[in-house]
């Protein structure tokens, strides 16, 4: 029975190009995300006080933490699409460290926010904007990941969606004139928890093979 199966499998064995290394894959995703962000800024502009904001240490630290999340999630997603995580299991947990870094930065930014900046008049609109902005990268990620063979499809889905949402969060932070850290935590970053859970569900639906 097994021999028959092997015969039929080898009959189907044509030359096949191996998948790119996860580091290459991660760099490709980051490159596409950078182009997407650059195009968005070219089309819609950026916050007018951006240069001044970069003189605020906690704003700069927040953007740096977001960039760390971007890099960590792209790397982790690239590893999670390989059945054996390309035998670099440790790197797959990189997003945890990046999120801890973001939490620490947000905590200090919140402490430093005295007197607290005024809350903007809008609220959930930010979450919706980030989610809409993230749709394209999320779709692209899942499309690419679908062609691999993840044995951790829930985690892969979750990390992929977090990567896409981070692209959106980074865009909005550099686009929207808003200095309220409370608003940012509530409507930009906390929804990431729900996004992570949604990603698990999507991963099961899309990445299971």
């Amino acid at each position, binding site marked *: 029975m097994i021999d028959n199966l092997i015969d039929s499998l080898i009959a189907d064995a044509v030359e096949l190009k191996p998948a790119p290394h996860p580091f290459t894959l991660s760099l490709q995703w980051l490159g596409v995300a950078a182009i997407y962000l650059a195009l968005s800024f070219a089309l819609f502009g950026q916050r007018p006080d951006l240069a001044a904001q970069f003189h605020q240490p906690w704003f700069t630290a927040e953007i740096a933490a977001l960039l760390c999340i971007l890099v960590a999630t792209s790397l982790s997603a690239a590893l999670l699409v390989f059945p054996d995580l390309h035998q670099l299991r440790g790197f797959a947990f990189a997003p945890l460290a990046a999120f801890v870094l973001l939490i620490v930065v947000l905590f200090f930014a919140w402490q430093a926010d005295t007197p607290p900046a005024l809350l903007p008049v809008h609220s959930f609109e930010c979450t919706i904007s980030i989610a809409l902005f993230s749709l394209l990268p999320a779709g692209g990620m899942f499309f690419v990941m679908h062609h691999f*063979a993840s044995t951790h499809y829930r985690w892969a889905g979750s990390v992929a969606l977090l990567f896409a949402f981070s692209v959106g969060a980074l865009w909005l932070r550099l686009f929207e004139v808003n200095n309220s850290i409370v608003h940012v935590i509530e409507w930009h970053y906390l929804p990431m928890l729900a996004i992570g859970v949604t990603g698990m569900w999507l991963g099961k639906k899309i990445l299971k093979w």
Partner: protein
Amino acid sequence: MTGKNDNLEVLMQLALKGDQRAYASLLQQTSHLLRPYLARRLNSAGEVDDLLQEILISIHKARHTYDGNRPYKPWAYAIAKFRLSDFLRAHYADQLYHAVDFDELEEMLPEDVTETGFSYESIHAEVQKLPEKQAAILAMMHQDGYTAKEVAAKMEMNESAVKVAAHRAYKLLRKMLER
């Protein structure tokens, strides 16, 4: 190049280049490698064969995710473990799906006794050998025609306890009658 002791990594590299002999050898060696692993975790040889086939197909589908530059075995075992978990999950879900609920079983058992061709009267002597409470419950249910709910009310027990007692009585009766 296709001998038994060939390096699995090299065989996969050759297979990815379209070498069918290398690929056949790799799959043969992989199945020899995985069979004992599966046999230790599954009950029947049939299940082992089925799952082994699924794993080989998965390895075939996922072979582009292996480049030959890292150890082959962890890669193959990762796929095997993944398919084994899937198989076990489906297996236990199926068992649960087909399992008869205990309450349903209790409902079914009195019917079984009455449908076996013998009446309560014909096994009266055996019923009397049961513990007093169980005998009383069976007498009320099968001689007097009370439902479990009515028996519970009469004996100041709850309905589930009556059903459980009846179920135990049926088991004891069955043993007695089988002797």
